[in-house]
């Protein structure tokens, strides 16, 4: 049985403010309970295969210049730096 407290804990780890989203916890709980159906699928012995891509199949690890300066599109770009919110711990 999953408790709402566990869901709240995970929400914080996912950086979702649960005080703000308390109303969702019950719905999340209902969906996760629905997932219990997976217990009766009888797939314990099933192997999982993952698609493999060989290194040679990946695109070359080289710098591809972008055709314009994206940094200039940032709202707080000041010409020589970008302003970000001040943080305290």
């Amino acid at each position, binding site marked *: 049985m999953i408790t709402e407290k566990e869901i709240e804990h995970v929400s914080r780890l996912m950086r979702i403010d649960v005080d703000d*989203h308390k109303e969702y916890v019950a719905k999340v709980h*209902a969906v996760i309970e629905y997932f219990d159906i997976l217990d009766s699928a009888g*797939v314990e012995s099933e192997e*999982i295969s993952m698609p493999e891509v060989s290194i040679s199949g990946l695109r070359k690890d080289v710098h591809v210049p972008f055709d314009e300066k994206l940094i200039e599109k940032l709202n707080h770009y000041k010409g020589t730096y970008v302003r970000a919110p001040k943080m305290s711990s």
Partner: protein
Amino acid sequence: MNLKISALEYVQGVKNGDISAEDFVAQTMDRIKSIDNNLCAFLSINADAVIQAREIDKKIKSGKKVGDCFGMPVSIKDNICIKDSKTTCASKMLENYISPYDATVIKRLRQQDAIFVGKTNMDEFAMGFTTEFSAYGPSKNPWNQDYVPGGSSGGSAVSVGAFECVASLGSDTGGSVRNPASFCSAVGYKPTYGLISRYGLVSYANSIEQIGPICRTVKDAAFMLNMISGVDSNDNTTIDSRGTDYLQDIECDIEGKKIGIVKEMTGEGTDPAVLSATKDAISKLEGLGAICEEVSVGMTKYSVAAYYTITATEAGSNLARYDNLRYGYDFPLEGYEYNSYIAKARRNFGPEVTRRIIIGGFVPSAGHAGRYFLKALKVKSKLTKEVNELFKRFDFLVSPTVPVLPFKLGEKIDDPVSLLAIDINTVTANLTAKPAVSVPFSNHNGLPIGIQLMADSLQDKSLLQAAYALEQTVSLPEVPI
């Protein structure tokens, strides 16, 4: 001018000199202006569409080479990037996001001289089945505006169904192209995984999602596939389609083809009207010489739980980037305590996205991964084996696209578990990477019903042939708008 023509009729009309791209696009934009306040198919409009169409006409007149779309007005789901235009994903989080580059599909359509009329409404970040989870209000079904148009690519299906464009691109993670196509009486095509590049599609669940066309006819869908499919160095999951022409031989008959009727998708929980339409479709297919037989895909029962577990997990990871530093909405640069800053930055996600992020953290977490995420992957693996076995004996699988008729706006929004069941017939194609198509087939009391056909991987061409054959057997009423 008749805006109700198909994409191929449009192209032929412009080639013959019967249609001017500028006139057609101008009238399309007028139609959007006059009816879209009610339908809400669009989130933004391309103000330069008519000017761009005029350029195409000039090119044609001066004898220059013109791309195969000849200025065709196309709408694009708002999670596909068009350079220098807004891509909001119907989220407050990306309200002011301007894409700095074109998605590969956009680049290809642009090279073929398509005109992008606007970006279409959707469920926020493509998470939903009705378009009601758009942060900008739901789209309405053109067949009856009290009803949902389906989702998540609801705006795309509405724009095609209400003649606000000739064709559209949506994205399909669990049925998001096929479901709204079915609800709005359009053709919705989900290709084999890898056939169309996802570069420039805002990521939600990368391992199973695909861009797909929503069109008026099966031939139009084949034409769109010709325009946008093929290998792309920016998406290493793409497959080389080796220049396949999906339109060529599309009228090939399906005599002798073997079709499996999926028992689990035509039984309990299916609306009687939908079931009756499905039976009718099967007899039509048999009338064309196909051999139909009931088959079982035992894992169907678990497919939605597996689908939701896998997609929520990928969403939890993909949406971590919306932290208001790299992406996000803007707020004042005052001092913040770190955790409260991040929580505040992510407060602008809507309810369904918030739920899926929480679930996406929960199901793969250390204490629960074995029970949920790992089991979901095992279901996916077993489901793939079951379907692969069937495709050794059958050419296609048939089912209704959606087990229920379109329902009223607001009817199911508060019950996430009952909403999940809507995807039961469509998620299998995503989980197994197979191509699938929804063909408009019937109309019950003014509400459309679509039939789904699925084929083995890379059998897209023969799937379109079967869809075309089925499409030819029906004559449907015109949308009352």
